[in-house]
């Protein structure tokens, strides 16, 4: 009787530890092989033929296909510059200079990976249609309410996942000897309650 109880206990504990770790790992990339630039995180080998099991499981869980390393690099951001989760209840400004690549695109999604429906069909900005100031910097407002200038509409109260894709380049090519390229900063401007 005692043996059966102990076996059951081991199995429950093992199941909890094993499956719990897997569930955690597919939602949050484990901290190895990452390229971090401010709020932005890229998984170095996500689009490589020798992708690791963690990156591959994360992609399969989200239903996403990776961007091949020969095609470019994906940076994702879920937090602002202060480390707080991006939310549709707040307004943010994404500003700074993008690395010089052939094409880049920035888009906002809900946690399921769906773009935020809006009247102007504006789901993101890219290197051609973004507005740059005299120094070449971009300034995109991320908000559920209309903003002057480049405005990326999101849904109120929804968590926001930002995805920045840099095409036809590699991390090494744009990092200029540093470990990660410099990417625009995501700053919170204010929130509505």
């Amino acid at each position, binding site marked *: 009787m005692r043996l059966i109880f102990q076996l059951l206990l*081991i*199995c429950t*504990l093992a199941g909890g530890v094993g499956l719990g*770790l897997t569930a955690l790992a597919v939602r949050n990339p484990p901290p190895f092989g990452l390229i971090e630039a401010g709020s932005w995180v890229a998984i170095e080998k996500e689009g490589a033929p020798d992708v690791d099991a963690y990156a591959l499981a994360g992609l399969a869980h989200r239903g996403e*296909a990776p961007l091949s*390393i*020969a095609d470019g690099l994906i940076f994702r951001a879920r937090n602002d510059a202060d480390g707080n989760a991006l939310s549709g209840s707040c307004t943010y400004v994404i500003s700074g200079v993008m690395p010089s690549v052939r094409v880049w695109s920035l888009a906002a999604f809900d946690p399921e990976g769906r773009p935020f429906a809006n009247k102007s069909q504006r789901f993101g900005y*890219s*290197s051609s249609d973004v507005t740059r100031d005299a120094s070449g910097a971009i300034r995109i407002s991320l908000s559920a309410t209309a903003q002057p200038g480049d405005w990326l509409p999101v849904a109120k109260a929804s968590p926001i996942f930002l*995805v920045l894709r840099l095409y036809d380049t590699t991390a090494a090519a744009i990092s200029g000897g540093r470990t990660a390229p410099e990417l625009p900063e995501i700053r919170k401007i204010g929130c509505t309650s």
Partner: protein
Amino acid sequence: MHLMRWLFLAASAILIGCVLHIVSLLAVPVLAPRDAYHRLEALGAENTPILLDTADPAKALPFQDPAFVQLVCRFNLSPLPLRLRVPLAGDYVSISFHDRDGTAFFALNDRSALGAVLDVELRDASDEVAKSLPLGAGTISVAAPGASGFVIVRAYAPWPTEVESVREKLSKTICEARS
């Protein structure tokens, strides 16, 4: 003695848990019911080009780039290789090749094109018969590690107003079994 026994129980639970973690992690790409391959399976047949639609989540992959028009084609290289002809529909056009589990095993972009199309033949690396087939002039041969997987074609639409014309051009893509 009692304490030793509990420690032993906890240690074995953690050890088995770690094994279970590795096994379940490796199983995710195989068993995930909503991974990229399964989502594309729901959109149409093998060896058929399918245009995705950014604005309609039912006809798009999650986190799909809205600045690009994307076309997908699930391939089956048994018994014949895949013929892929992609018109250079935008300022940046690329083709990426994925395994059944999503791994990107190869990609090329418009820089590799000789004319106004990217002409590719995808062959199963383990298929000896396919290797001996003649290759057309200007056709790029790509070796696939397995018989099934999918291809993603991306064409950049620099302005939202250009999406329609890029879609129109990209819809001329050919993705079919070699005849």
